[in-house]
């Protein structure tokens, strides 16, 4: 694990055509500093795995606006009408997954599991074309694991080894994505000395983490603010 001084340096590994996981549930737990830098990079044809795709012209929505997204995999694009419009125009591919399936596929991807069966979505349009199988008299749908080249996530604190703790509902997809990408880049509110985080409170052990930066954007009651 290495601590980087800026989001620009931490994201220097991102390349055209890669698959990027982005943590967060809307703004909560989103890697807001890394997202803002990601949208400035000269890369395209990205596959983005994230629950949402920002809002119109905001966050990941900017990536879409700039036509840098080839495919979006997520569960809830409702908050950004640009996603539906871009899809109708044939500009992007979309893989819509139930939220639990999205989470479990990422978990599987990080855990060496190629696929798994779930009851969720059986008999619906989202199961079309997917293999099904009966277990104990009930129908299940085969879902495949998700992995990425890069994950950008948000945690509350990191220590200098890269151990992470999360805060409240800002946890969401972040610990899962930390396990499922080749390069895991984390922004945190505070970097502390190793030993300062209680060992039994560490949610993501350092072996999953590659790069850490200090967050420059913080979500407050009044909205997102910049800080140094």
């Amino acid at each position: 694990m290495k601590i980087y001084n800026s989001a620009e340096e931490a994201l220097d590994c991102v390349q055209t055509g890669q698959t990027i996981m982005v943590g967060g549930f809307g703004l909560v737990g989103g890697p807001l500093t890394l997202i803002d830098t990601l949208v400035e990079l000269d890369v395209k044809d990205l596959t983005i795995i994230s629950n949402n795709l920002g809002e119109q012209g905001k966050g990941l929505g900017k990536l879409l606006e700039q036509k840098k997204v080839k495919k979006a995999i997520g569960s809830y694009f409702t908050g950004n009408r640009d996603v539906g419009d871009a899809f109708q125009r044939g500009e992007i591919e979309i893989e819509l997954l139930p939220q639990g399936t999205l989470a479990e596929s990422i978990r599987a991807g990080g855990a060496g599991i190629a696929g798994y069966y779930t009851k969720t979505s059986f008999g619906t349009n989202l199961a079309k074309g997917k293999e099904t199988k009966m277990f104990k008299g009930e129908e299940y749908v085969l879902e495949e694991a998700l992995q990425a080249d890069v994950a950008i996530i948000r945690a509350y604190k990191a220590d200098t080894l890269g151990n992470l703790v999360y805060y409240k509902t800002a946890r969401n997809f972040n610990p899962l994505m930390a396990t499922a990408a080749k390069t895991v880049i984390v922004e945190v509110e505070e970097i502390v000395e190793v030993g300062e985080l209680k060992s039994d409170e560490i949610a993501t052990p350092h072996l999953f983490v590659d790069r850490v930066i200090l967050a420059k954007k913080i979500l407050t009651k009044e909205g997102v603010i910049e800080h140094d």
Partner: protein
Amino acid sequence: MTNPIQEAIAKRAARELEQGEIVNLGIGIPTLVANYVEPNYVYLHTENGMLGVEDVTEEDIDPNIVNAGKFAVGEAIGASYFDSAASFAMIRGGHVDVAILGVLQVDEQARIANWAVPGKNIIGVGGAMDLLVGARKVIVTTTHTSKDGKSKILKECNYPITSTRSVDTIITDLAVFKYINGQLHLVELMPGVDLETVEANTEATFVNSLK
């Protein structure tokens, strides 16, 4: 702004809950149900990773504590936080007692449609499909008719269904239905509503089980 029709539906839905149940509330009318249950009567679960949701006052808002509708919520005593995979393991694994969901349509087999409208550019499903396969009991809350006066309680959903699972209870501004042994049963009229009004606004076939 509170809408009296929605509030009445939410208030009635709250009466379905039993003490100590683990309850997941969907977006819209279901979220309002929380206003009609006593504090600590049930444990509210939200799929973005929290058990022990409670109301929050404006001055106590923490922007990093939200429910699935991304609204600020409070932390009850004994609350816990967990990642999205654990949250959906709770849902799919049968550990959530009750899910209260909004719907666009429900049919006479009590199957619901609540995630997609043909021809509309809105793409999202969230946790609805997971809640339907996993929650022990599913209650849906909805206005009985759409804004243009069409029944939402149909013979068959013409929007894509959310699950092949039938829901247990349907609560509207006109009536309460239960799905029992493969049939919709009208079990209650909402205050001030007569049977004729329910019949006139319900396309689905139902059994009159009013006491």
